[in-house]
């Protein structure tokens, strides 16, 4: 098998994952996109392991560790998402702006006022926080 096929597949999957992380607003969907990116990395690891004919199987073992760390990451990440949902009543990443500066917060408040219909719950939680 040509090495180009797995590496190009990994590049495409990684780009799709990047698009999901940047474009999605729901935190759970962002976690899913991160999983796609981690899988793309794993394809690369295994392909290069087979190409280099590594008898120690370093690529495969590293891929195993990536899967284990991804499982841990999803567990902790979902716990954080649930905590955010419990305190803010929303998992909309665009409306979680408590860490922004005052100017940005003003602009976001205006945005939230304009977009009340699309994220009524998120805007309501924001108004409560302020």
């Amino acid at each position: 098998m040509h090495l180009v096929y797995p590496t190009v597949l990994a590049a495409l999957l990684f780009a799709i994952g990047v698009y999901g992380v940047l474009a999605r607003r729901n935190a759970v969907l962002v976690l899913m996109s991160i999983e796609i990116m981690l899988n793309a990395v794993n394809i690369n690891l295994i392909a290069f392991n087979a190409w280099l004919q590594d008898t120690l199987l370093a690529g495969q073992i590293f891929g195993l560790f990536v899967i284990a760390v991804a499982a841990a990451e999803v567990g902790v990440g979902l716990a954080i998402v649930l905590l955010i949902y419990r305190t803010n009543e929303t998992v909309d990443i665009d409306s979680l702006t408590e860490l922004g500066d005052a100017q940005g917060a003003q602009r976001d408040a205006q945005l939230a006022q304009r977009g009340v219909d699309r994220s009524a719950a998120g805007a309501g939680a924001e108004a409560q926080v302020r």
Partner: protein
Amino acid sequence: MTLAQAAPGYADVTAQEVIFLLLGLVAVASAVLVVTTKNVVHAALWLVVTLAAVAGSYLMLTAEFLAWVQVLIYIGSVVVLLLFGIMLTKAPIGGTAGLDGENRVAAGIVATALGGTLATLMIDAFRHAYIDLDDFTASGAEETGSAIFQHYVLPFEVVSVLLLAALIGSIVLSRNDEGGR
């Protein structure tokens, strides 16, 4: 590794390459659906298809143990965990238009540029590289197991400690503290 001269051209396609390309097609198409579908639950179910296709491509690259680990851990537990997350955050189950942010055009530009750059780089760098799969037999579950427990025993144990720490961390984070203290 130095198979540049001996590598067959791209015209004579092997059966493994055909299967790998089909699996890759399924993986890419379902991944696109994961990041574009309007339904949260459908996104999780399309993620199952993506992960299964990636597991199949692991199999085609001789990593049989990792393929089954992928099926067990990713499809078996991570997707179930994500579905729990969807349910517990009361995400709108029906189709909704508000799942994508305002910056989806910018995200599309960034992702296209990144994917194009990476794919061009990979094609340019590894055009002549060829994986000799028939020669590479030391990759079954037996070899993987002995590699883990002989050469990588310490990192393996560290990973189990990491999983324990993540377990305790998520319990502490998701515990309801209102009644306590």
